[in-house]
């Protein structure tokens, strides 16, 4: 500025300028600033557009997974099929497998059609079976085994429609697609339309998607993410139970007690390096150490949790050390000054003040672990695994189970397009969990963070 306003000694012939009028240089500088702002806004906009596109795609593809087409059909529980000897012996009733229930469902379907005045376009009633999910026979069999006294009666069952019928109701399956599809024919769609008009078919919110178990490839309509959600839950318990105490203890020691020498420097560098190690490496380590060497059970959430603990530890240690460092030394000095021991000063004064930062770091570490798939591939948590509810705490940790991201990956791989929809639906649930955790972390930080 001085150059512009004062005449240089030596009396050069400089033109006088005013701050009120812009000369070329100022104009150029202003233009540069305006350009930089525009770049910034453009960058933010591009980011926001991608985020919006992503969210839009997820919601559009995933929301249909939360509803499912059901139909209510009257099934006659024929005694001559289900209990041939008529003595209602539960062991004999159990001998009738789900295949024995198929004829009952076919009968129930043709009866439903007749009751609603719909003419069956099929020569054989057997073709109607394709409209009902294969899960129906298991559902009816379970009912009969639980209530053997009701054999002989006609009971209304609310059963799942098959995935192609459901896809048609959702607009995923088009009439022309079925020309070469052997799973369903165009006539089935005529029946579907008629049943829909008659009010037999209903598209309802599907709790089984959120709470249910995985299903095999032939019945996507039945699949749910509930069991793998429990798998994720037990893994997170292991991560929380191990990573938090180990991480906090390690960082307190390193930050407050450890001498500063070459060894602690080495440890520090290694912790930072560990944070950058790709997660698949931890998976291989887990396979080698926990399963092949320590003989822990395969596909168990316990092993998954141990692997994810290794992955989360550096994150927790780094954030804990950062929040311990942020506590001003005057707090420590004051505590020591009134006669507290080193340990008392740390645990009574420093740690409580650092707690919000530690918790935030932990929650973000947990959220990262919750969304991790790669290490789980190697310890056998991908496949048709999340099929049994754990029957207790121990079985929750030790029985084979999947995790939410692994389940989503598995669904995305499967042949039936109905599973693709479920993969997107699973992503919505996973995102909701991650968002909740991040919001909790933000609230904790806002609420309890102290500034000095």
């Amino acid at each position: 500025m001085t150059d512009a306003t004062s005449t240089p000694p030596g009396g050069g012939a400089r033109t006088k300028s005013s701050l009120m009028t812009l000369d070329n240089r100022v104009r150029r500088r202003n233009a540069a600033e305006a350009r930089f702002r525009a770049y910034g806004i453009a960058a933010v906009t591009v980011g926001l557009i991608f985020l919006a596109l992503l969210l839009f795609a997820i919601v559009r593809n995933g929301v249909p997974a939360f509803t499912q087409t059901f139909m209510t059909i009257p099934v006659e529980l024929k005694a001559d099929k289900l209990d041939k000897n008529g003595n209602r012996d539960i062991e004999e009733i159990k001998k009738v497998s789900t295949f024995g229930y198929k004829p009952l469902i076919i009968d129930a379907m043709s009866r439903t059609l007749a009751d609603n005045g719909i003419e069956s376009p099929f020569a054989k009633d057997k073709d109607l079976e394709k409209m009902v999910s294969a899960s129906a026979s298991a559902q009816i069999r379970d009912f009969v085994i639980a209530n053997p006294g009701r054999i002989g009666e006609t009971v209304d069952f609310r059963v799942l429609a098959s995935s192609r019928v459901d896809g048609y109701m959702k607009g995923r399956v088009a009439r022309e697609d079925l020309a070469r599809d052997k799973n369903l024919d165009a006539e089935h769609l005529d029946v579907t339309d008629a049943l829909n008009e008659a009010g037999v078919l209903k598209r309802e919110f599907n709790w089984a998607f959120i709470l249910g178990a995985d299903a095999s490839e032939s019945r996507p309509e039945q699949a749910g993410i509930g069991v793998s959600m429990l798998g994720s839950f037990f893994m997170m318990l292991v991560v929380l139970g191990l990573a938090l105490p180990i991480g906090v203890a390690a960082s307190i020691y390193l930050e407050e007690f450890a001498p500063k020498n070459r060894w602690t420097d080495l440890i520090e560098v290694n912790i930072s390096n560990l944070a950058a190690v790709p997660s698949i490496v931890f998976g291989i380590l887990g396979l080698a150490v926990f399963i092949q060497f320590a003989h822990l059970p395969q596909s168990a959430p316990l092993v998954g949790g141990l692997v994810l603990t290794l992955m989360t530890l550096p994150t927790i240690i780094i954030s804990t050390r950062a929040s311990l460092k942020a506590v001003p030394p005057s707090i420590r000095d004051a505590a020591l000054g009134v006669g507290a021991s080193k340990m008392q000063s740390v645990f009574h004064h420093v740690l409580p003040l650092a707690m919000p930062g530690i918790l935030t770091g932990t929650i973000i570490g947990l959220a990262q672990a919750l969304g991790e798939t790669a290490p789980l591939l190697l310890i056998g948590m991908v496949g048709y695994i999340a099929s049994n509810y754990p029957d207790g705490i121990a079985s929750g940790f030790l029985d084979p189970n999947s995790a939410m991201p692994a389940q989503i990956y598995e669904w995305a791989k499967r042949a039936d397009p109905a599973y693709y929809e479920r993969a997107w639906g699973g992503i919505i649930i996973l995102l909701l969990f991650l968002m909740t955790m991040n919001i909790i972390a933000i609230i904790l930080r806002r609420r309890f963070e102290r500034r000095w």
Partner: protein
Amino acid sequence: MSYFKLTASAVAIAAVSATAAAARDQVQVAGSSTVLPYASIVAEAFGENFDFPTPVVESGGSSAGLKRFCEGVGGNTIDVANASRKIKDKEVKACAEAGVTDIIEVRIGYDGIVFASQLNGPAYNAFEPADLFNALGAKVLKDGALVDNTNTKWSDFNADLPAEEILAFVPGTKHGTREVFDEKVILAGCEETGAFEAYVASGLDEKAAEKACMDLRTDGRSVDIDGDYTETLASIDANANGIGVFGLAFYENNTDKLKVATMSGVEPKTETIASGDYPVSRPLYFYVKKAHIGVIPGLKEYAEFFVSDDMAGPDGPLAEYGLVSDPELSATQSGVAEEQTMGSNM
């Protein structure tokens, strides 16, 4: 200092798990991703119809499954390995070295391998093995001499095929499907075109000539897909001129996106595969550790249920999904019932 308690409980959990590792109450299966859908259908129905828990089925490929199968005997090894090819002598040996000696081999049926392309894409409607060899082989016969493959369009060697850039998505080498593709399509095409004889004439013995035949070109026109069929499908979606190699069951579930080509004039269908007219098919297997029968509850029941008429028969759910059922199923059933191990009757 609540984290001392947390640490203590974590240590306790680890201690409990170490003792519980031996006791396992569900069947564990791993292996071929081609067999996975069938195994999952059986496992689900098994869980519904028996008082045993639903077996756990992992994927990962035939070789990976058999490798884990051969790790040894005991609660933390798998009970059943699914495979889309026969177990190799090398693998039997590796098994024996790890103490897995009595293996029950069960053939569940056949699977067709189909060549499919975008539904509205170019008219890839009929292939001969020779066409695929000319398109994808590393060296092809041109004017009586073996030269590096320079064909860029399908019409370069067969005027009946569309004038489209060659692009094929074939399964990676860890898949059992690749082996069948190599042997039944590429090798057959190699022999058909006379390239095989040219290799032999050039001084290679028959085995080396076969191997040379099965080399695919590496200039990017033949793309290895190491993932699953969904990855192949996505590649086809993105490339209108591409053809992909799929399992019959996968194709039948995605007829709204894919159209299939005939091979040697035969359309791939369950009927043509069962009759043997369609040339590119392969048997599917699973392998059971006999030592685990009686130790792992439900293992034998699972194996028997898998090959029962209700499941694997021509009208069962497996056939409905795309498995070509085995005409000799009853022999397989009695073999499983008697726990016949490999080598005892062959």
